[in-house]
């Protein structure tokens, strides 16, 4: 399942759709430090139309518009958090590549921890049981 998902993701990365209509033209910020901030930020945000593509990768016009919006707001002196919360207000948490920790994502974030505790428990019990077994008469040496 996950491998299939990976293949699908790969397909979308390799064959990024280019729409007939173009979005805002690309114009990097003059200050390299600010431009680097814009780059980092657009990798953390999802293109609302695409299959789990970030704004950074997508060729969709909306992604191009959002790239411009991010640069305009960085140039206006807004912080990364300001820009993110503005976009979340506009598009919902859907736009964040990293899902927020909320009541409806508790299981997503804490599920892995429960899983690991349960798995480690199974391993511990299995080893503890194996240590109590009597020595086998015949050796199954394979190495």
């Amino acid at each position, binding site marked *: *399942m*996950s491998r*299939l*998902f990976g293949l699908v993701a790969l397909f979308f990365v390799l*064959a*990024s*759709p*280019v*729409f*007939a209509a*173009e979005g805002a*033209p*690309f114009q*990097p910020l003059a200050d390299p430090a600010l431009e680097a901030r814009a*780059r980092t930020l657009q990798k*953390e945000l*999802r293109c609302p139309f695409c299959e*789990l593509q*970030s704004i950074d990768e997508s*060729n969709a016009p909306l992604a191009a518009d959002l790239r411009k919006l991010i640069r305009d707001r960085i140039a206006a002196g807004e912080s990364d958090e300001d820009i993110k919360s503005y976009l979340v207000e506009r598009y*919902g*948490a*859907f*736009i*964040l*590549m*990293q*899902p927020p920790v909320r009541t*409806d*994502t508790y*299981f*997503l974030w804490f*599920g*892995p921890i429960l*899983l*690991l505790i349960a*798995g*480690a428990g*199974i*391993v511990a019990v*299995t*080893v503890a049981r*194996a*240590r*109590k*077994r*009597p*020595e*086998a008469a015949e050796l*199954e*040496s*394979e*190495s």
Partner: protein
Amino acid sequence: MIMAVAIGVPLALYAWRASSMTPGARFEVASRETGILANNFLLTGAAAITMLGTLYPVLLDAVTGTKLSVGPPYYVATVIPLMAVLALLMPFGPLLPWRRGNLSATLRLLRWALLVALVVAIGALVLFSPGSLLGIVAVFFGTWLIAGAVTDLYRRAGSLRMLRYLSVAAWAAALGHGGLGVLAFGAAGATVWKSENAAILRPGETMPIAGYGLRLERAEQVTGPNYQADRATITVLRNGREEGVVHPEKRFYPAEQTGTTFSSIRTTGLSDLHVVLAEPREGGAWVVRAYVNPLAPFIWIGAVIMALGGFCGVLARLRRSRASRVAVPAAVSAAE
């Protein structure tokens, strides 16, 4: 449909083979058995977390209507630590004997591997000074895995001359684990140390990218069998010398009213250079994006080495079951 096959086939396999699983013999904490158990636990855990991350947004949307994205940061936070633990423990596995081992003796065998991994990781830290922690950790584990595999081979063979007399099973473990180390280097290079640049180029202008220069010579319209494309001719320069020419395209398929960017990849065997023709501008200028992914070919090389290890493992199993066919009923050995 795909889900049905992906879930049904393993269940059927399990139903078919479950009866042949028997509780094994006694073993201690420090043993190959525990290693295999830990390996299965960590790999299953990583797969389960990936499934959770994949299905959670779908289920949440179906149940509450809330739309959510689970992107790369989630997997970096959850699966990567698990893989780090796996990589840390992995070299111990083949060095531990079945049933009862000695952890401190195994650690003594691995002290050179640990030393080499630490030296290489510190070297990487110094060399790539504003380094990312993730990259340094990947370099450490990559070296640790490769050095661990070499340690295992050396311990089994005793000397370089005896290396060719090693069993297929010994090569299986060493190649499988060492291949993952090679892959770790590739993954670190391609994600952490990649460089990218984008620029608006008029014909004749050059943009820099990680030691290369890319000079846009011209862009022209070409017609393919079912598409029309803008095709650029870009000269790749290295230290002012011309190294070659790439032709990235931006294609448009009229039948489907969609287009794709057809990027060019140039590899030196140590790093990959991607050149993408992004958007046209007035006056024959183009937005050109370029990426350099150092060590990216190692991802493929590592995977091939791991596959080779897996092949050796199957071969070793076949040989073993052929050797024991006298003792075991034919049906069981065929199923093995």
